[in-house]
């Protein structure tokens, strides 16, 4: 569990670290949306260059990002294989029963893999450079117009920040419980499916019991300090839009606009 890099925050003072979380959220969503419009060499080139430039601006080595991809390796292989075998059409390279490797299959597998990697990497830039609580603040601020239609934005933001705050705690706890059960002779990740499911029970039950106990303690502690849901509260950390945000936004809009232009007007 120590090796999981995906979804972790790496402190720093780079260009991307200094950006407003709202800007990072909006740009990431824009990027992910536009990835689905990229369809040929030039559009993918623009997307890739934009991504690499963003990685460079985060001052975190590319190899750290690559390591973040590794846990998803099998998922990627699986998606690629599905695409290779089931994307029919075009020149057939290889056939065995109903398994067919065709030109279209290979093409769409390549596309899916590329999209997969780009989307994961752009979200990783967001999580590597933004503290979870900043992300929650950013989401709250972006959703704040919904207050007008009585959407409980503050409550949602509180739930989100509590959940984000306790992800690492729960992961640590899961690791401790696994070590304790290992010491009592449990072999994790061995045996057949039935055996494996049986080994999950001694982790999940203590984990749930602890999580519920902790939730009760937190709510008691918050109420003891006079917390009331749905009040109009002010923020300790204020979000500020800076020059870096505007510049980044302009770069993204131009590059992503170019992808659109190439797709629809060339």
């Amino acid at each position, binding site marked *: 569990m*120590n*090796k999981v*890099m995906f979804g972790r925050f*790496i402190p720093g003072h780079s260009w991307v670290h200094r950006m407003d979380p709202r800007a990072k959220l909006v740009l990431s969503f824009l990027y992910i949306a536009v990835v689905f419009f990229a369809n040929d060499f030039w559009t993918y080139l623009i997307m890739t260059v934009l991504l690499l430039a963003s990685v460079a601006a985060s001052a*975190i080595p590319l190899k*750290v990002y690559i*390591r973040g991809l590794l846990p998803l390796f099998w998922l990627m292989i699986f998606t690629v294989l599905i695409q290779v075998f089931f994307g029919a059409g075009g020149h057939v390279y290889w056939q065995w029963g109903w398994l067919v490797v065709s030109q279209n299959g290979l093409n769409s597998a390549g596309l899916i893999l590329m999209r997969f990697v780009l989307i994961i990497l752009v979200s990783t830039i967001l999580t590597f450079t933004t503290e979870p609580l900043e992300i929650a603040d950013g989401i709250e601020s972006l959703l704040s117009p919904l207050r007008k239609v009585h959407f409980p934005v503050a409550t949602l933001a509180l739930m989100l920040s509590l959940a984000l705050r306790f992800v690492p705690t729960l992961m640590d*706890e899961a690791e*401790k*419980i696994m*070590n*304790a*059960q*290992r*010491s*009592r*002779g*449990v*072999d994790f990740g061995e045996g057949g499916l039935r055996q494996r499911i049986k080994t999950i*029970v*001694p982790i999940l*039950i*203590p984990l749930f*019991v*602890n999580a519920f106990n902790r939730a009760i303690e937190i709510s008691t502690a918050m109420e003891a300090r006079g917390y009331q849901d749905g009040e109009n509260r002010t923020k300790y950390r204020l979000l500020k839009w800076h020059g870096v945000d505007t510049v980044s936004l302009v770069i993204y809009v131009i590059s992503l606009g170019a992808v659109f232009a190439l797709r629809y007007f060339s």
Partner: protein
Amino acid sequence: MATEIKFEQVNYWYQAGTPFAVQALKNIDLHITPGSFTAVVGQTGSGKSTMIQHLNALLKPSSGTVTIGDQVITNETNNKHLKPLRKKVGMVFQFPENQLFEETVLKDIAFGPQNFGVSEADATALAKRMAAEVGLDESLLSRSPFDLSGGQMRRVAIAGVLALEPEVLVLDEPTAGLDPRGRLEIMQLVTQLRDEQGLTIVLITHQMDDVANYADHVLVMGHGELIKQGSPREIFSDPKWLEAHQLGLPSATKFAYELQQAGFRFDTMPLTVDELADELAPQLQKGANSHE
């Protein structure tokens, strides 16, 4: 049969090869003799918990070797061969009540042995014996472990480890968060296991009184290094050094040093209340006589 434990130049990095890499153990050399009672002390974050997780190979050294009985563990050791160690070295983690999960106390205690191939009937018999050993009332055995008090849950967890019938018992701050009586009972249980069943004990603790009363060897950790080791008497003979490393003295020893300032004399510094009484009684007698 007797399990001896040896560390040679052990280094350990958490999250090696990532930007979060932390060296938690630095060049540790140590030796734990069979039947001994070893106390491990040191500030929070000094690497105590990391060190003891090497004792049953939950962690493997990043470099160096750990020898447990006849098994040598290095960074390259295959995880498949580690299971017998888990039976030989029983591990009671900090707040072990967090590992309970079964429907009943009895089933939870009997869980461990069954993972090592003991039949359900034998494991249940073993569990009953261990429950009695840790002082759990029979009436509790059919209850859910989550309905018990904190102190009782901890005993259930300890019984669950004892049911593996280990040769070495490792305990990470087993008395943390218990009331004074609960603490005393756990410590009495631990010494009894050593004296009556010959278990080797490794105990992490912040209670210097426990170190003085029960341990025969002390390992002092600081910033991932083993900064001092020796008998409790050797360790507690240098109050200035202990203070510099933010470690305390046993209360009897502390009191004796204060008495020394007030004019009492001690040939050897007392570590326990009994030793203090033995040293003080003649001096008080003399003082009383001289006033007559």
